[in-house]
C-alpha cells in the first residue's frame, strides 16, 4: 500500500513538471506579441520593444520559465500583462464560478446516469432498455454547447421561464443564482450524463455475468437485492475512473458553456487571455487545469485502493 502511494506521488510530481514545461513551450511558440496587442494597431517598434522589456519577455526562455515556476510554487504568480491586477485573486474568483458549474454539472450527470444505466443494464434485452439505450446514444452525440443553445431558445427566449444568460454569486441573490445556474448545469450535465450512462450500463452488465452474483442468487436473494448488495460496489470501479476522466472533459466543456451562457468563469478568463495574449494568465490557467486533472487521477488511484481490496493485496 505505502509503496503504491509513493509510486503514485512520484508519478504525480513528474507529470506536473512535464506539463509545466509543455505549457510554457506552447505559449512561447504561440504567434502574436503581447506587447503589440497592448499597444495596438499603430505602435512604434521602439515602444513595443520597451514594453516587452517591462514584461520581461526579452529575457532568455529558461529564465522566464524558472521565474514563472517560482511564482507558481510560492503562490505569487505576479500581475497580468493586460489588466495590471494580481493574477492569483483573479483566478481564484473565476475558479469558484467554474467549480459551481462543473460541480452541479457532475451532480446532474450522476443523478441521471447511475439509475438509468442500471435500469438499462438490467433490462438490456427488453424494449424499455433498448429505447433508453438509443436515447443515451443521441445524448452522447449532442455537443454541450448545442444543448445549451437549444435550451436557451426554448426555456429562456420562447417560454421565458429562466434567464438566457448571466451569473450572480449565491450570497448576493440565491434565487437568481439558481435560476441562472440551471440551464448551463443542465446542458453540461445532460451530455456528460449520457456518456456516463453508457459506462454504468456496461459496468453493471459485466457484473451481472459474474459468478459471485449467480452464487448470491443461488443463496436466495432476489436479482435486485443481489445487484445492490454485491454488484454495485464492483461495478463502481470502472465508473469512478470514467467520472474522473469526465471531470477533465467537464472543465474543458465549461469553457464553451461559459461563453454560451456569458458566465465569468475560468473558461472565459482563458479565452479572453488567449485573445489578449495575456500569456502569464493563459499559462497559469492551463497549468491549473492540468494540475486539477492530474490531481483527480491521483485521487482516483487512491480511491481504487479503497474501493477494491484486491488492488491493495496485490500491491503488498
Amino acid at each position: 500500500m505505502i509503496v503504491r502511494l509513493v509510486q503514485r506521488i512520484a508519478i504525480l510530481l513528474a507529470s506536473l513538471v512535464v506539463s509545466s514545461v509543455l505549457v510554457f513551450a506552447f505559449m512561447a511558440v504561440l504567434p502574436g506579441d503581447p506587447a503589440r496587442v497592448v499597444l495596438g494597431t499603430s505602435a512604434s517598434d521602439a515602444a513595443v520593444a520597451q514594453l516587452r522589456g517591462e514584461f520581461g519577455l526579452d529575457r532568455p526562455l529558461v529564465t522566464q520559465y524558472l521565474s514563472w515556476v517560482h511564482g507558481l510554487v510560492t503562490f505569487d504568480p505576479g500581475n497580468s500583462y493586460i489588466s495590471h491586477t494580481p493574477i492569483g485573486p483573479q483566478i481564484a474568483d473565476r475558479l469558484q464560478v467554474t467549480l459551481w458549474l462543473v460541480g452541479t454539472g457532475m451532480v446532474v450527470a450522476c443523478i441521471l446516469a447511475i439509475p438509468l444505466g442500471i435500469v438499462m443494464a438490467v433490462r438490456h434485452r427488453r424494449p424499455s432498455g433498448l429505447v433508453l439505450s438509443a436515447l443515451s446514444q443521441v445524448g452522447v452525440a449532442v455537443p454541450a454547447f448545442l444543448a445549451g443553445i437549444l435550451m436557451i431558445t426554448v426555456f429562456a427566449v420562447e417560454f421565458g421561464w429562466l434567464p438566457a444568460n448571466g451569473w450572480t454569486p449565491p450570497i448576493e441573490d440565491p434565487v437568481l443564482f439558481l435560476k441562472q445556474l440551471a440551464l448551463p448545469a443542465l446542458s453540461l450535465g445532460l451530455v456528460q450524463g449520457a456518456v456516463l450512462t453508457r459506462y454504468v450500463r456496461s459496468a453493471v452488465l459485466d457484473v451481472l455475468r459474474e459468478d459471485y452474483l449467480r452464487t448470491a442468487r443461488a443463496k436466495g436473494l432476489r436479482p435486485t437485492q443481489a445487484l445492490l448488495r454485491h454488484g454495485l460496489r464492483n461495478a463502481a470501479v470502472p465508473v469512478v475512473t470514467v467520472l474522473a476522466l469526465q471531470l477533465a472533459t467537464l472543465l474543458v466543456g465549461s469553457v464553451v458553456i461559459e461563453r454560451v451562457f456569458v458566465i465569468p468563469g475560468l473558461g472565459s478568463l482563458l479565452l479572453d487571455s488567449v485573445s489578449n495574449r495575456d500569456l502569464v494568465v493563459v499559462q497559469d490557467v492551463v497549468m491549473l487545469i492540468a494540475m486539477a486533472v492530474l490531481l483527480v487521477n491521483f485521487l482516483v488511484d487512491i480511491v481504487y485502493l479503497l474501493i477494491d481490496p484486491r488492488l491493495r493485496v496485490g500491491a503488498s
Partner: protein
Amino acid sequence: MGHIRRLTRHTRTVAATLACLLLAACSAGSLATGGTGDSRNTLRIGLSAEPANLDFTKTEGAAIPQALLYNVYENLVKLDQSARIRPSLAKSWSLSKDRRTYTFQLVKGVRFSNGAPFTAEDAKFSIERVTSEWTLVQKAQMDVVDTVEAVSPTELKVTLKRPSNDWLYRMTTRVGAMFSRTGVSKLATDPVGTGPYVVKRFNRGDSITLARRDGYWGREPHFASVVLKYFKDPTAMNNALLTGTIDVIGAMQTPDALYRFENNPKYRVIEGTTNGEVVLSLNNGSGPMKNPKARQAVRYAIDHKALMDTCWGGRGKLIGSMVPPTDPWYQNLTDMYPYDRDKARKLLKESGQAGRTLRLRLPTLPYATACGTVVKSQLEQAGFKVRLDQLEFPAAWLTTVFKNADYDMSLIAHVEPRDMQAVFGSKTSYIRYDNPEFRALLQKADQGTQEEQITSMRAAARLLSKDAAADWLFLLPNLMVADQDITGLPVNNVSESLDLTGLGRS
C-alpha cells in the same frame, strides 16, 4: 459488517468534503453579472468588446475610451452627435490670428472624483503628460504642441508649433482627457476624472458598473448607475435583451437578427452613423496588388450594394472613400469605380497579374468573415484567383497583416475618427501607400483655414480613391436596440465615447 462500517466512514468523509466545498463556494465570488438593484434606477447596456483594463494612456483599444470618455473623464471640448466640437470643461475658446495659439476659458468650481479641484494647472499637466508618459501611437497627435501655459486657474493658453486644425479636434478624443495631478497613480484600475460617473465596479470578463457621482458640476445623470455588460457572443447579447437581462444593445453585431426586435412594440431599433469604414485593404507595397491596374480591377469587380445586402443585412452606407458623412469634407465617391465586371476582367488582364493567387487574410471578426466570403466570390467571378484565410483577431492579425504587411488583401473596419492620415498617410502603414502629393494635401489641410481644410481633404480623399489605394466596401451603421422607454441614447457613434450623459427613461 466490516465492509459496511468502512463504507459509512467513506460516506462521511465524502459528505464532509462536499460540505466544505459548498461552504467555500457560498462565501465565494465577487463576480456578479449586471445589477440586481432597483431596475428603474439602473440602465444595463450590452456591448461587444470588453476593455482589457481602464488605462487608455498605455493600452490600445476602442473599448476603454468608449466606456470612460465623457462619462468618467471629461475633455476641454467634446463632440456632439453631429460630430461638431462643443464646449465641455472649457466654456469657450479663441484662436489667435496666426492660428497657432488657443486660449481656453475653463469652467469654475469643477472637482475631480478624488476631491481635488480642476484648474488650468491640471489641464497643462494632462496635455504635457501625453507626450511624456503615454505609450500609444495617438500620443503623436500632441507633438504639435509647443508650450502650454496656465495663465490663471481658469485660463489656459496652448501654443502650437504650426497651425493645426486637427489638434483641436483631437482634443475631443482620448488624448484630450483631463487628469488630476493627484489621481494618475492607478489608472488601470482606479480612474479619476471630472465626469458625471465614477467606475464603481469592474468585473473582469463581465461588466463595468458606472455610478452617478455626487457633486458633479454639470447636469446630474438620470440613472443612479449604468452597467456596461460585455458579450463575446452576439446571439447571447440578443437573447439577453429579449429576456430582460439588459435594456439596450449598444452595438448590434448581427443585423440579420434585427427582425426579432423590429416587429416587437417593446423595442426600438436605432440606426445611426459611425466612423467605421469597412476597408478592403490592398497591399500597395508588394505582391500582385502593387500593380495599380490590378487594384483598379478589384474596385470595378465589387458590387458594393449586393455585398452590403448579403453580408450586413443591407444596413450601412456606401461611401467609396475614407471619409464618413459626418466629416465636413464628405463627398460621395461611389461613382468613381462603379461596378463593372467586364472592365475589371480587362484591367486584370492588362495588369499581367491574372494568374496569381491573392491572399485575402481576414481577421476573425463578425463583419470581416461575413463580407470576406462575398468579396472572394465577387472577385472570382471577375477572373481573380483568391485564397481566403482567417487570422485570429487581434493578436495574430496585428502581427501578420498590420505589422509585417504579409498579405495581399485584408478586410477591416477602421473605426478611429478622421483616420485617413493614420491609415494612408505613412509609407510604413500596412497599406504601404506612398504618394507625396497625398501627404502634401493632408499637410495643407491641417495648416490652412477651415475652408482650405475642407477643399484639401476633399482633394486628398479623391486622389486616394483614384489611385485605388484600397476599396471602401461600406460604412458600418450604428445599430442599437433599446427598450421603448429609454431616451437620450447616442444615436451616432462619431466620437470615441459612448456618451451616456443624456440618458433617461420616459
